[in-house]
């Protein structure tokens, strides 16, 4: 599923790459850029955390003009007016203008590196609204944002992830060189898909999914211990041969009735029960009132 999302086979929207200090999600971000270029789409990068050179390293240099790097790194708050974009410009009209400045043939991809930086300088509520507006306005097909989840309050992280169509959380794998990505994707119909995969990013920002880990939540079945069979060495016979079995089947058991009798017994007979009693010669039938000696 990670590959599908990165390569854009599943329709865009807002994608959050969630990482922590233990494992950087920027490699995945590069994969998104790489995949978008290969599809021939324009990529707009709002870079607040890394320089352009660092981000371009490893990417295909021939298609460099497809990447529109909006430099926010040297001066993110616009104090010395060195940057082409500042944190304050993260709102729908400004970004729409930024993206539409360059003519596009295809829908563009907006990469935000990173959302964490922006969230530190804006109200989270405002950011959430801007992101949703950008998604609705449709100037960009896909928004991919990097979010350092250990820098924010739990509520902020949850709120931003709640808006996303897909959340990719990366973490280091236990003993291997690759990382583990937990992908949660919500389809348009409201269905939810989750998968955990081991992935590896090569030098030229190509993503390869190594193995799928077991489904999250699925408890791994512990290997069955060879159980001692209590019937293995007995001093008497517990098993039946085929012939013996047949003979056993033939024996009619008590209270096992034929189909007809069963259905007759099971047939509901509502309110038809009647007691009929015919007194015989030996019956001592008393005509007198049995209670007449009582002092009533």
């Amino acid at each position, binding site marked *: 599923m990670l590959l599908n999302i990165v390569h854009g086979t599943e329709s865009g929207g807002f994608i959050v790459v969630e990482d922590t200090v233990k494992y950087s999600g920027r490699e995945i971000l590069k994969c998104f850029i790489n995949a978008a270029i290969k599809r021939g789409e324009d990529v707009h990068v709002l870079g607040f955390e890394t320089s352009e050179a660092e981000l371009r390293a490893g990417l295909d240099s021939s298609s460099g003009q497809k990447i529109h790097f909006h430099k926010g790194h040297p001066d993110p708050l616009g104090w010395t007016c060195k940057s082409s974009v500042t944190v304050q410009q993260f709102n729908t009209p400004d970004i729409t203008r930024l993206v539409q400045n360059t003519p596009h043939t295809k829908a563009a991809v907006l990469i935000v590196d990173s959302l964490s930086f922006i969230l530190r300088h804006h109200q989270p509520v405002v950011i959430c609204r801007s992101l949703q507006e950008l998604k609705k306005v449709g100037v960009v097909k896909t928004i991919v944002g990097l979010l350092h989840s250990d820098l924010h*309050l739990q509520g902020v992280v949850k709120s931003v992830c*709640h808006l996303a169509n897909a959340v990719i959380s990366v973490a280091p794998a236990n003993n291997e060189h690759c990382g583990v990505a937990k992908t949660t994707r919500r389809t348009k119909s*409201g269905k939810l898909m989750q998968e955990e995969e081991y992935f590896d990013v090569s030098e030229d920002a190509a993503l390869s999914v190594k193995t799928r880990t077991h489904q999250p*939540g*699925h408890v791994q079945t512990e290997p069955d211990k060879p159980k001692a069979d209590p019937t293995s060495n007995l001093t008497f016979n517990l098993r039946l041969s085929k012939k013996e079995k047949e003979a056993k089947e033939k024996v009619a058991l008590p209270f096992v009735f034929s189909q007809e009798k069963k259905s007759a017994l099971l047939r509901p007979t509502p309110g038809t029960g009647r007691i009929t009693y015919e007194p015989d010669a030996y019956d001592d039938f008393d005509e007198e009132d049995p209670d007449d000696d009582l002092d009533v």
Partner: protein
Amino acid sequence: MAVPGIGMAGPAGVNTTSFQKKSRSKLVSIPGTRPSVQNGQLIVSTGVTSLDYVIGGGLAVGTLLLVEEDRYDSYSRMLLKYFLAEGVVCGHEVFLASDRDHPDEIMQELPSPIVDEVGSVKTKEGQAQPCDQENQDTMTIAWRYQNQPKVQNALASSVRFGHYYDVSKTMEPEVRQAVKCHSFYALQESPTTTELSLLSSPYHALLQSIQSVIRKEGFDVSTPQSKVRNVLRLGLHSLGSPLWGDDLCCTDNPTHCHALTTFLYALRGLLRTSLSVAVVTVPSHLMQNKSVMGQIIRLSDTAIALESFRGSEKETNPLYKDYHGLLHVRQVPRLNCLVCEVPDTKDLAFKLKRKQFTIERLHLPPDLSETVSRVSKIELAGGCGTTATGNKHLDF
């Protein structure tokens, strides 16, 4: 407490006379409503028959149902769509406010009603039928039990109320457009908060919008009855999420911590004096401050919470394998009386079949696997400390 002039059973509920019954039957003239069996309140269906049963027959007109959203908002959204679809089918007016998706998009996804009602009833009866031909052969020893009716999990009242819907299909646009639909989209409102009003601006605008619909379309009970009365169904999606300009979800002590509660208070006042009924969904799993959530529940009449198994460890629990989530009834309304209708069981679960969303009593499925009971027996024997624990094979 409820709408004056509608729930006539109010203060005089003690001595029920035939006179009251007459006045009640006059009120049932609104399609899709009926008086409640318990307190004579005019009720409407939520669209999910089993949910109606759980909350005591249906939603009383003039009250508010709070739905705490599940983690990924898939089932709460479905409940909202059921509620609106029921309104469309009954010819009620509909008001929908949403934040993430445009209200029109949600309206387009409404489930299609199952028109062939006789058929659906037939299948229901088929399930309740004692047993079918193939099962007859299976019981050889305990055959006397084979005509016993199966345990019925599905909750339904004896009287049909509300419609059944097929979630795999969407409603015909013609059917949908036959009713008047008002909508409100939170993102279109400006995010600036006005200092003058207690409410932050999207809530304020929403309240005004609801108010104007109620006034203009004549849902207000105080206005003289001029035309045929109808019910207004309000669906408010994801109130309190950041897109409503509310930071309840982001921080522990939000700047406008009373914005949503003030809104709900005003809304409930509005509902009480009008022929309207509201379903509000709230992303309670995002709320950081639990006391605010408690206040929100207290400000609503009926409150239920959906807990989806998706992404939680309960997903693989064998106890829950037949279900998609749990339904918690947080609050049942006390309308015109001191006690409320207590649901007979609190263990409720919901599941989404291919076509239908239902709520059932949660019960343990029979454990048919051989290993489970055997293992537990061995463990039991070990616990008792009998002599047989040491060697695994039988010794005679």
